[in-house]
């Protein structure tokens, strides 16, 4: 079945696909950083005993977690330009471009998932630790930043990274707004040269190798943090 498999087309497309991969990795890294920062804020909000703080955060997280990522990408792709025109009052205002709208979409979307991971991490820190911090006279922020979050993040690193791998796979969905990430590059070459079999199998292979190696590294890390019994 591979008799007329054309390896040349892959080789010729490599530089172009390399650019696509840089795009995918860049989007992953930025959305991951933004998602973790925003997710931490959301997690602290959700854990607040003040309803006016916890409810909006829960509402946001539950809304985003029950919406498909593609729909969220569309929301920002189609609506951010409209919103900018509306609020600036300038009907010729430039949009922020598909990359930025995708970045915002991914950050806001992933924040909801990171929030839940971080919340579980914070809750896994024994209450005695917080009591001890308060007993020493630390206030909420001191206790949270000095005592709770460092312990929580230490336990969460593997899960946060695993979510990062999922995020990396998810970035392939920017295909739907025509961006040239790795998958976008693969599909453009595939369509142009009529070589769908080669390009899609190659894309699958590259994704597999990267994600598999990354997941092995995460597993290693996890072993070091919590040695198996």
């Amino acid at each position, binding site marked *: 079945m591979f008799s007329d498999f054309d390896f040349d087309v892959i080789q010729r497309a490599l530089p172009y696909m390399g650019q696509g991969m840089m795009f995918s990795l860049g989007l992953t890294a930025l959305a991951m950083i933004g998602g973790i920062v925003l997710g931490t804020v959301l997690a602290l909000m959700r854990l607040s005993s003040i309803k006016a703080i916890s409810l909006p955060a829960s509402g946001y997280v539950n809304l985003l977690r029950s919406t498909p990522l593609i729909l969220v990408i569309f929301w920002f792709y189609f609506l951010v330009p409209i919103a900018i025109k509306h609020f600036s009052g300038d009907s010729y205002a430039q949009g922020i471009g598909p990359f930025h709208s995708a970045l915002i979409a991914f950050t806001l979307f992933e924040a909801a998932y990171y929030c839940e991971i971080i919340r579980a991490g914070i809750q896994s820190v024994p209450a005695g630790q917080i009591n001890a911090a308060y007993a020493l006279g630390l206030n909420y922020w001191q206790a949270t930043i000095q005592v709770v979050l460092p312990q929580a993040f230490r336990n969460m690193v593997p899960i946060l990274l695993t979510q990062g791998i999922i995020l990396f796979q998810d970035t392939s969905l920017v*295909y739907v707004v025509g961006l040239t990430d790795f998958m976008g590059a693969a599909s453009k070459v595939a369509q142009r040269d009529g070589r769908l079999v080669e390009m*899609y199998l190659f*894309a699958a292979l590259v994704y597999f190798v990267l994600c598999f190696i990354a997941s092995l590294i995460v597993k290693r890390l996890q072993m070091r943090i919590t040695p198996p019994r």
Partner: protein
Amino acid sequence: MDFGFLSQPAFSGGGTYFDWVITGIKWTMLVSLCAWVIAFTVGSVLGVMRTTKVVWLKGLATVYVELFRNIPLLVHMFIWYFVMPELVPKSLGLWMKQGMPMPEFWSAVFALGFYTASRVAEQVRSGIESIPRGQTHAALATGLTMPQVYRYLLLPMGYRIVVPPLTSEFLTIFKNSSVALTIGVLELTAQARTISEYTFRTFEIFTLATVVYVVITLAVVVIMQFVETKIRVPGYIGTGR
């Protein structure tokens, strides 16, 4: 917000825009449910295989899980839709391209189903592995064979334990069904995008689509909470001891 446009006849025929939304919901549900049947059955078998002591069964299931979960769903979609007909024997490939009814639909179902099976397998495996080893010992000590231990102890307990994670896997399938739009399945998100392009009622139609997703998610959560209380083991708290 003005939803009046929903009752207008659609630009390219086929009823009103509201009808398009309904069609979208129908395809979303169909893809999700059919894919779930595959994901649940294949995933269960793989999950059980990973818990056995038979090396080659375990290895086979592990290879499947690693292979499928480390490739993005979009790539799975494209492979099932564009690549598969080229890789199978010529006559079958020709049929898949020309004779098979609803090729986008079935490609989406297979892609989503076999992809999610790898995630279901991990849930089933961790459910079974969370049952203390002493339980298996006790069952074996009464003279049950290993298949009987699975049948009467590990599977009934394991499935009870994994109802919550399996519920969220189903919801993941439900949300991921939107990826089927990339190969031309006119599910809810696709319909919303098309309607937005025809009517410029982007805000309204996306809001409507989001609300539909949220409502169906909530409904599934409520139903599964009911199921959970139905199958709850009296006096049994959690999985640890």
